[in-house]
């Protein structure tokens, strides 16, 4: 669900095909019949933006029919935990949770806590002001004494226990309701639910694969949370064949969150310190490190990171240079930054490996904002739209931008491609795979590593004589990577070794367990510790699968500690025995007194299943021997999330920010804390029952094609790829084509409040109209690869979409919005904005 795996991840999809050949059933739930559906046993067409209702329906099916994996749920999840009496569910408040601050568009989360916990010291305090939710990656659990929630009911009968709350919360998500919201006939829905249940339990496991079809929503994080609940109820986490596969959008997007390009986390998901409040390392650790679970070692991870960055300058006396770290004071995410840019609050901008003028929502606003910059650095393989906006953006044609008036100085730096540089990719499975340079980059093309290293080197040279305090963080950096060749390319392996970490004797670390908070160890990313164990590039290992066990531990290297399945302690029962012979993976070897199995156990190796922590235990030692979810303060998987998620402890179906429907479940239509930029340059379509919503009656969704890569910078310029998908097109059903007079192969204009774009029409049976909430709704599919440059050109689908974001992670909702479609090409020049304005005015 939420993924077109065969098209967007064809190489990974080979394993789905392989599994199917071995008897696995593949079910594809997706608005469109795609190349993934073609290989699936069953395709279930669903209305874009309604997946939580579908998954919630499965939760309800499981609970109503007693299909949960009872022992697993009882032992390994927080199902038995009693929740605060102050908590009010959406059931009680017509679609919102307790603690909503409607003015501030945020939740106060005190009432969501475990009952009996010291609310004042809860996890909620770790997240602040506007930056809240930034810590979604870094939300590491409530503050628990010894890892045990204070109040529990092992029978799961207490009406305030998580299990009963869950049951109540999802009771509305009946098959009939699923049919009404998703447009999936109840019979078909029941088929899927039953298939999933039947294929889960002791003997069998099922997996979910998702991609940006789930994340790019105003409730995206909650989509995934719902899947997590389903998988936990069915016992499909930490076990072979189970799990939730996050299919990432590029080769190393996983890597770019592990070693983040995000503003709010540091390597290894350490939260970025916050200005004003986290004045020193002690305060930071106190606020961010729960005493129990592996996050209890946060100080050691942080100090090792600081030592890796500032070397000898980082000493106990100066907090290991903790104050050198930049601080965040608010949301600095992509869309906030672009909005600030448009409002003249930003002077310079680096764009590397991204093409926001095509790839980001409301890309028109992106382009307009770029023109407000003083300078812009773009590093890419070609002059992408983001670099060329000043002379050929579509807004030049419409007159909204005038080249002569744009003062932005654009620095276009030619980049080396992945075949022209060494480095690692971290994939969905957390597998770091090294790639070796095949050819030298041509001309002035250089790797990102080269660029950042030499940029830093030159800045340091310029500042070398500086006495100013503010320059110390730059001057004290360990900026000493060895370089090779005439271009002085930094040695990528040296960077990897720094990330992998060293002990006090400067020997490479084998894993993260030896990390210390006394400054004796260095490690650039604690979860990557050991990737350079024994001085060997572990990520470059390529032992063929047939020459090793089926888990293939000697193919590349997986974080953490080369574990291939996380939380794999859950593959054994509380006593440490495999749940079944068929699904055995990691188990307790009582004779040897250690955990053993196919994989590296994701557990303290010698902690017996019956281990009970002593009173004074901290970190992982505070968790019992039968608690597999060792990153959580309570060692259990969270069906109910008291912290870490800003828009509700339980996932709830909300309509997309733009949808033609009201929410059939509650009075609350859309996510009450979604981020919407209500500004003149980001108008939103009227929705649901609002006046004028019928001007934009169709659901529109974006997607990718195998033939192109994301915003097209790497593929539209290549003749072999461009010829395979030469033009931007829209996919519509024959019914919609009839209704709107669209001709196969002709042109259509697609309109939203932001703009109108044109696309060639692909009429196909693969698009099905759905019956939702008593009426037929049509969906329009738009691949988003196109822009005005390259061999294959076309309008950009993302021009149509608004800045409407998930509040946890600030990801745009481009997988579901509303639009109108009409036959023929769009108006050109100044008539285009005029046309769109008229549409808006007619809508009211």
């Amino acid at each position, binding site marked *: 669900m939420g993924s077109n795996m065969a098209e967007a991840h064809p190489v990974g999809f080979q394993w789905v095909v392989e599994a199917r050949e071995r008897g696995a059933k593949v079910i594809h739930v997706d608005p469109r019949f795609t190349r993934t559906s073609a290989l699936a046993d069953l395709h279930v067409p669903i209305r874009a933006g309604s997946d939580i209702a579908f998954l919630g329906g499965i939760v309800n099916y499981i609970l109503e029919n007693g299909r949960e994996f009872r022992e697993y749920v009882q032992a390994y999840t927080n199902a038995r935990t009693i929740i605060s009496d102050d908590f009010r569910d959406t059931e009680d408040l017509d679609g919102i949770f307790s603690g909503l601050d409607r003015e501030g568009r945020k939740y106060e989360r005190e009432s969501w806590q475990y009952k009996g916990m010291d609310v004042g010291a809860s996890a909620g305090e770790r997240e602040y002001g506007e930056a809240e939710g930034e810590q979604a990656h870094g939300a590491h659990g409530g503050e628990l004494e010894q890892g045990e929630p204070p109040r529990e009911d092992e029978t799961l009968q207490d009406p305030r226990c998580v299990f009963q709350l869950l049951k109540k919360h999802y009771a509305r998500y009946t098959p009939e309701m699923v049919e009404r919201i998703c447009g999936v006939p109840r019979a078909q829905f029941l088929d899927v639910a039953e298939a999933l249940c039947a294929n889960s339990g002791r003997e069998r496991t099922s997996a979910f694969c998702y991609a940006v079809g789930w994340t790019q929503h105003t409730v995206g994080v909650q989509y995934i949370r719902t899947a997590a609940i389903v998988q936990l109820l069915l016992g499909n986490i930490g076990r072979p064949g189970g799990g939730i596969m996050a299919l990432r959008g590029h080769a190393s997007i996983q890597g770019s969150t592990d070693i983040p390009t995000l503003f709010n986390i540091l390597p290894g998901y350490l939260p970025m310190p916050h200005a004003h409040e986290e004045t020193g390392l002690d305060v930071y650790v106190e606020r961010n490190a729960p005493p129990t679970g592996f996050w209890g070692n946060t100080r050691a991870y942080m100090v090792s990171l600081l030592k890796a960055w500032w070397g000898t300058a980082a000493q106990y006396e100066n907090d290991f240079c903790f104050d050198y770290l930049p601080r965040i004071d608010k949301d600095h995410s992509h869309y906030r930054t672009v909005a600030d840019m448009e409002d003249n609050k930003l002077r310079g901008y680096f764009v590397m490996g991204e093409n926001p003028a095509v790839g980001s929502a409301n890309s028109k606003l992106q382009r307009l904002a770029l023109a407000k910059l003083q300078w812009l650095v773009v590093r890419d393989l070609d002059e992408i739209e983001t670099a060329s906006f000043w002379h050929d953006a579509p807004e030049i044609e419409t007159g909204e931008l005038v080249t002569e008036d744009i003062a932005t100085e654009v620095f276009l730096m030619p980049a080396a491609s992945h075949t022209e540089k060494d480095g690692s990719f971290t994939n969905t499975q957390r597998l770091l795979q090294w790639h070796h340079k095949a050819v030298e980059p041509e001309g002035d093309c250089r790797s990102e590593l080269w660029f950042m290293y030499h940029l830093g080197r030159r800045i340091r040279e310029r500042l070398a004589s500086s006495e100013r305090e503010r320059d110390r963080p730059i001057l004290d950096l360990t900026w000493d990577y060895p370089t090779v060749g005439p271009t002085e390319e930094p040695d990528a392996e040296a960077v990897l070794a720094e990330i992998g970490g060293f002990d006090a004797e400067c020997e490479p670390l084998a894993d993260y367990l030896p990390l210390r908070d006394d400054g004796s160890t260095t490690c650039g990313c604690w979860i990557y510790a050991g990737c350079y164990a024994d001085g060997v590039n572990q990520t470059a290992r390529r032992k063929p699968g047939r020459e090793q066990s089926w888990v293939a531990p000697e193919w590349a290297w997986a974080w953490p500690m080369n574990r291939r399945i996380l939380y794999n302690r859950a593959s054994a029962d509380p006593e440490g025995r495999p749940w079944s012979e068929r699904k055995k993976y990691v188990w307790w070897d009582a004779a040897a007194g250690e955990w053993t199995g196919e994989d590296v156990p994701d557990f303290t190796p010698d902690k017996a299943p019956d281990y009970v922590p002593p009173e004074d235990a901290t970190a992982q030692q505070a968790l019992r021997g039968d608690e597999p979810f060792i990153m959580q303060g309570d060692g259990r998987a969270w069906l109910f999330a008291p912290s870490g998620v800003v828009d509700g402890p339980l996932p709830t179906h909300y309509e997309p920010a733009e949808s033609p429907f009201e929410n059939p479940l509650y009075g609350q239509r859309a996510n009450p804390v979604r981020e919407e930029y209500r500004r003149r340059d980001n108008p939103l379509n009227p929705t649901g029952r609002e006046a004028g919503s019928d001007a934009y009656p169709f659901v529109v969704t974006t997607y990718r094609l195998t033939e192109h890569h994301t915003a097209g910078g790497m593929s539209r310029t290549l003749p072999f790829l461009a*010829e395979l998908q030469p033009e931007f097109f829209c996919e519509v059903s024959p019914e919609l084509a009839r209704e709107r007079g669209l001709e196969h192969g002709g042109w259509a204009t697609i309109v939203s409040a932001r703009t109108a774009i044109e696309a060639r029409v692909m009429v196909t*049976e693969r698009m099905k109209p759905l*019956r939702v909430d008593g009426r037929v709704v049509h969906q329009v599919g738009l691949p988003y690869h196109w822009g005005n440059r390259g061999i294959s050109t076309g309008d950009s689908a993302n021009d149509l979409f608004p800045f409407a974001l998930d509040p946890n992670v600030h990801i745009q909702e481009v997988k579901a919005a509303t639009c109108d479609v009409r036959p023929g090409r769009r108006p050109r020049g100044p008539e285009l904005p005029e046309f769109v304005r008229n549409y808006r005015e007619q809508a009211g």
Partner: protein
Amino acid sequence: MSERKGFFTDTSVCIGCKACEVACKEWNQVPADPQGLTGNSYDNSGELGANRWRHVAFIEQKVSVGVEEAPPESFAREAARQSLVSDGLDPHEDADGFRWLMSSDVCKHCTEAGCLDACPTGALFRTEFGTVVVQPDICNGCGYCVVSCPFGVIDQREGDGRVWKCTMCYDRLKDDMEPACAQACPTDSIQFGDLDELRERAARRVERLHERGREEARLYGDSEDDGVGGFGAFFLLLDEPETYRLPPDPVVPTRRTPEVWAAALGAAAVLAGGVAASFLRGRR
């Protein structure tokens, strides 16, 4: 001579990614040949030719909603049945019987190759791997192979004048590497290997599909009894060959060559005789 090499293209696992098309062009430096948006599903490259040695076909098919026809093991069967009895609002009824076939076509490297038999210059030859390859330094572009291929594979390249087609990556085979398309194929829809072994594998595969109720699976080109003496590159199809732009019963023109020559010589004799006879009247 080495073991005869071949391709087995199993279209039942093709995901239509076109990696084979691109890998082939990259390796063999086959020029781009843009056709524009064809509107033929996701196929914008048309068919095999001088500038396309692998081609992926896309066929969108509405198949009967009848429950009997659905593969017995699939959920679609039950879903289809339930849909039919549900309240009639259901717009999915015919979607349940929808399928999207994809198939990567390639030169068949026939045992009896029409192109090879037709070539008057010897530019086309049979390699030590049993494949059929054009030598570009010999071909003079007479075009006879073009009309001699029952599959419409080989073609003349505009602006170049010579004919081009799949070589099964002859250069790679010589270096003990598999062809670029087979290596690029993520799902092993394209399998490369010893032809005999591939045929056995294919027979097992189709048997297995039949066991799983996919009666529509059939092999195409695996038999030496066919009109070209068996394909060096054969297929597992899920529909009739012509659906994929493949001839249902290809016969190499050379099978008819004796008849052709007999008729030509007969006609030549008649011509000579007729000319002679036209003088007879004068003698009378």
